[in-house]
């Protein structure tokens, strides 16, 4: 793999990872101390300028928002109680009745298994942060791969996962965040995520042929 492609892959993967981190329970001190949003902006400058601008807005918003407010707004959007206005689970958008642990969740789990990963968290496996982290992992593995069949395997998995599992709920999810909160940090995060996903579409579309049946859709 030439170093330019590798750099691009690593940037994309790390972007997935840093975006995932932004959906965790917020810890302002840590987010700022580790410059998560600034790093995100830095990565995105090479990928998509408008996503980078959204990440810059996240830096500003984070500085201007109290920890308590962040926690409250994060809980209202993603934690509950009650019906979540922006549930962070794919199945809620992809299936009837807004349920968790749907057939699409099972599909996501099969992707993880296909990649040889086990998962043990008290959340459904189609949580936004977990799906994003999975793509980070696949990008890193692709970058690390020596043999071309390994490269191809991780590439194929990435595209299939992106197209089948993540992409279909990103627009409704980001739009749900926008209509449910006034918090500038999460508004900017939604914009950043949506824009970044948009920028990934052409990359994964090129690879789409022959990748659709990596993991069967139904149980």
């Amino acid at each position: 793999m030439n170093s330019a492609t590798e750099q691009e892959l690593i940037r994309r993967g790390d972007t997935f990872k840093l975006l995932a981190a932004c959906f965790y329970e917020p810890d302002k001190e840590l987010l700022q101390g580790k410059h998560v949003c600034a790093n995100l902006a830095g990565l995105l400058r090479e990928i998509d300028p408008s996503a980078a601008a959204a990440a810059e807005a996240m830096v500003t918003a984070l500085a201007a928002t109290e920890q308590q407010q962040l926690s409250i707004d994060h809980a209202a959007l993603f934690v509950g109680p009650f019906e979540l206005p922006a549930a962070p689970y794919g199945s809620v958008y992809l299936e009837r009745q807004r349920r968790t642990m749907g057939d699409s969740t099972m599909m996501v789990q099969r992707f993880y298994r296909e990649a040889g990963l086990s998962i043990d968290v008290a959340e459904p496996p189609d949580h936004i942060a977990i799906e994003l982290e999975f793509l980070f992992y696949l990008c890193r593995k692709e970058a690390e791969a020596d043999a071309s069949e390994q490269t191809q395997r991780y590439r194929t998995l990435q595209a299939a996962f992106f197209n089948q599992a993540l992409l279909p709920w990103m627009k409704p999810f980001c739009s749900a965040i926008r209509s449910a909160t006034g918090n500038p940090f999460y508004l900017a995060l939604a914009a950043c995520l949506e824009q970044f996903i948009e920028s990934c579409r052409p990359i994964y579309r090129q690879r789409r042929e022959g990748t659709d049946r990596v993991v069967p859709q139904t149980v």
Partner: protein
Amino acid sequence: MKLDRRTFLQAAIGSGCAYALGLQFFDLAGLSEAQAAELTELVRSTCSPNCTGACGFKAQVVNGRISTLIQAADYPEQSYNPRGCLRGLSMMDLIYGKDRLKYPLIRTGARGSGEFRRAGWDEALDYCAAKLTEIAEKYGPEAIATTVQVPGTGYVQKGAMVALAGLANWTMHHGYDQNGDLPMFWPMTFGVQSEELESLEWPNARTTMIFGSNVIQTRLPDAHHLIEAKRRGRVIVVDPDFCSTAAKADHWLPIKADTDAALALGMARVIIDNGRYNRAFMQDFTDFPLLVRRDTGKRLLAEETAVLAEAARQKEIPDYRRCFVVHAGGSLQLLDPEDLRPTDADLEGEFQVELIDGRRIVVETVLTALRRTLTDYDLDRVAEITGLDADQIEQVALDAAANTPLHIIYGASNYQWYNGDLKGRALSLLPVLTGSIGVSGGGISTYAGQYRIRFNLKSWWFPEGSKLNWVPYLHFLQGDGPGYPKHGIKAMVGGWGNPFDQHNMSNILKDRATSGELEFILTTDFQMSTSCVWSDVVLPAPSWYEKHDLTATILHPYLQLQQPAIKPLFESRSELWIFRELAKRLNPAFEKHFYPELDENEAAIKAIEVLLATGGRETEGITLEMLRRGPIRLNSPAPDNRQIPFYEEVQHRRPFPPRSYPAPLTATAQFLRSGRIEFYKDEDLFLSEGEQLPVHKETYLETEYKVNPDSRVSYRLRFVTKNSLYRVHSTHSNNSILLELQDNKPKVFLHEADAHERHIDNGDLVQIYNDRGQTRANAVIDPGCSRGTAIFEEGWWSRYLAEEGYNTLTCPWIKPLHEIYFVPGIWSPTTVWNECLVDVRRISA
């Protein structure tokens, strides 16, 4: 899902590269062979909502998710298979639904605002323990109250809460009287909490009479047994409304609401006057031959009489018994309360008796007294009171007496009235007069709620040193009563129920929560119910497909396991674990009862084993291993371990009553001092109320009309509730599949004339109101609905009623007779939901 500091250790600003970031959720060690395979398994558990149906279900689990629920159909009697309704099949909507509780929550906004923050388990439990300790120190531990709801659907997890409450000396409300499901005629007449035939016995009745119970709709898995009973015999439904069970009956008697006692007394008179009663049964097993003093109205005691005083002194009997007197073979005889051998006592007659002081008094038998009472219930008067046809009443009574065994299904919508006890006592006359007690297919059964605990559970529920302060819920609501704590109830610890909506006068709870009189409210549940919304701390518990428990309820007398098909979702933990953790924090000495050395699953299994080993004759020989293979019948004295009430008392001539667990026999046997079925009650209040024998009393006279005489004109509709076909009982009304089947609309059913008088059309949104509160519903003009009735389908949470909970309408009535003894959940003031007047007006077209 917390940010992990380690994840970022090697991320450097400006590098444009976060290459060394770690993985937070995935395990790089890779998959074990088992994990790599697609795992499908079937796990048998027991559907356990508060409907108490306890149907065996298998969960098909694929890769850790329940994909399908299937009726287990593994009961040894084929006619119980398959058992389980479509409502139970829709449970997945709650398990994986949008109201599922995920994490411990601590309230941040005002009470009831629904503003919470997520907390860790330690933080939440520490917080609860600190609050509970503070309240106990300030007001005494009895200021903390909890409720035990429907024990039969989970003896282990619910027992953990009861055990902690007992160790900590908290107050306990008994769910049976709180829910109004306690039929008070049972302790008065039979000395028990309640009894019932299993549904497999229904077809063995030659006559089935159903009063105020809609089993076709509310007992779906058992309904086919009623159809079989109809095929083999005759089914008569007595109901003001043409309910779905009435539609299946051979005869429907559209009785005027709350006049069933008059009907029963009229039919009893027909049976007695025609000599169609079972003389031997009445002599040996009932108080009909007992002598009653005309001067005092009290039953004659052997010790009072000149001829039997010495014999009475010689007789050794338990404290809870008395030696009464019968007339047999031409003389007075002491009636041994512990011996039910035939006496051939006179059932009727009036006699002169010399007392020890030489006075002579007149006595008569209970049956003679009853016959005098029954002179008020000639067929014409009964027809007038009940609105039924005199000939039909007579025919039904004679047919029932000629076709025994007679089985009466006595439903809550009939007995949840102020004088519901009188109706139950009067209706009990019919199976007793016909000798239909203690025999296959005969008796009287109540199924609503049904708290009868099926075996001895002392070892798990009541540890050494446990002491509960039992307070009836109605006393809690009125803020007064014998056991009511000096400083009141300051904290509520709840689970398995939803009192902020589903209990009477739910607005009182909300008022006390808002005013701060309730200083702390803790609820465990797996759904965000209204009670959770009003709590200070909400602790997420698993559903019955996520934990171990032991069940044994009504209708089919099986011990069954709840077994985890999946791991507890999100961060939920079993109630046993929750209350063990609380116990440890409240007093380290409490913890040892909850098997602290075992994890929560092992501890629950251990509790099941201990319960089986110490459950008494009902669980003797039954082991955990047997239950893991499938449901096992509890042992009973009847052949084939059938659930036939009073089988042993009648067939083996043992004194009444059988024990009602967990109360000791000494507590309940005092209700039947003669050791026999009693229709004559001679405690002073029964006499002064004129209720020494069952009589008919007019509705609302001592309640609504007394409090507000204007209610005769201003509130002309009886407010009664029924269960929707599309709801699993009442606790969780947020099942979206079932809501959809109900068109997402609360409904009130009205008679056409009542609706038109108020300019209400089908589908109109109406307000239902009285002096106490209001709610809203969509009108359904129902030709089957009797005039003067507003039937509301119960269970709707406030969120579906524009925050106007329907239990704001209900009432605080306590019948004083229900307070002359107190045995929790057995003789206790009980909620009488139906004694409630309202009116209805249109909100919009």
